[in-house]
């Protein structure tokens, strides 16, 4: 099934928001969503009405470029940039603290990294796959594989520094 993703265009305070679907089994090795029940195989990415939580929060309007993916794995595989994934939960204080920080960092590093967020309560199988425990946990994916991983809230500058040092090693 198709999933819509809104990647942030050049826009201040824009950010990517992904809510990923869980598969019906705990094994995530098969992620072809065609094999799974429709209602379990959908990923939706974007902001401002695309998140199921958007009806309860006011999001800044984002100029979104829509793309279609069929799973979180596909997003990782097809991304031309490294991906910073934020694993969060609704009632986790530090996670909410990071929301504007991620906006800022995403806008500042738009050419270098793609930022996505995964609600671990909506998509526990993805959280299980990456052995997420403390929240927030951030994983920087390069070439589809976890490259760097850290937990806890940090300031925008600290986060930018962390991302840049992770990306630098690649070159």
């Amino acid at each position: 099934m198709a999933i819509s993703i809104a990647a942030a265009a050049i826009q201040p305070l824009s950010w990517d928001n992904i809510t990923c679907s869980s598969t019906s089994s705990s094994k995530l090795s098969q992620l072809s969503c065609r094999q799974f029940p429709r209602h379990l195989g959908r990923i939706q990415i974007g902001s401002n009405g695309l998140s199921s939580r958007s009806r309860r929060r006011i999001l800044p309007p984002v100029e979104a470029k829509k793309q279609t993916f069929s799973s979180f794995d596909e997003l990782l595989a097809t991304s031309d940039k490294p991906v910073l994934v934020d694993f969060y939960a609704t009632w986790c204080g530090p996670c909410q603290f990071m929301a504007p920080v991620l906006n800022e960092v995403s806008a500042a590093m738009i050419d270098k990294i793609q930022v996505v967020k995964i609600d671990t309560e909506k998509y526990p199988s993805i959280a299980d796959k990456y052995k997420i425990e403390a929240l927030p946990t951030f994983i920087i994916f390069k070439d589809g594989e976890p490259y760097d991983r850290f937990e806890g809230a940090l300031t925008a500058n600290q986060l930018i520094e962390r991302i840049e040092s992770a990306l630098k090693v690649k070159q």
Partner: protein
Amino acid sequence: MRSLQDSTSYGGVGISSVAPPPRLRPRHSRVIVAEVEPSEKSVEIMRKFSEQYARKSGTYFCVDKGVTSVVIKGLADHKDSLGAPLCPCRHYDDKAAEAGQGFWNCPCVPMRERKECHCMLFLTPDNDFAGQEQTISLEDIRESTANM
């Protein structure tokens, strides 16, 4: 409340802006995604507990009261759904089992033993994010979480 397994409310392909209608919390013990607020009673209980425990442990609330408020509501939400204030800043395989076991029930073992609170609810004075206060009002909590 919407169960984890039920995402039919997302609609069809390409329709990504449909908001699911609010639902009543299911009575059976499926994993539930929080889409409603915790009860006022539980919020008040956890608010009082947080103030008392901060005083008792010599820790302080975050400079950003929004963080404190969200965590207090998270604790209240787990108290409502699980019967115990399970730490809201963790991902669990089985929440009910964890709540029964108790390690991560607030105040959790790391907090009790080492004053480590990764939720940023109870901060030691040397912490960069620690404020000066050990109190938070219900009004503070309401205001900080009004847009959630």
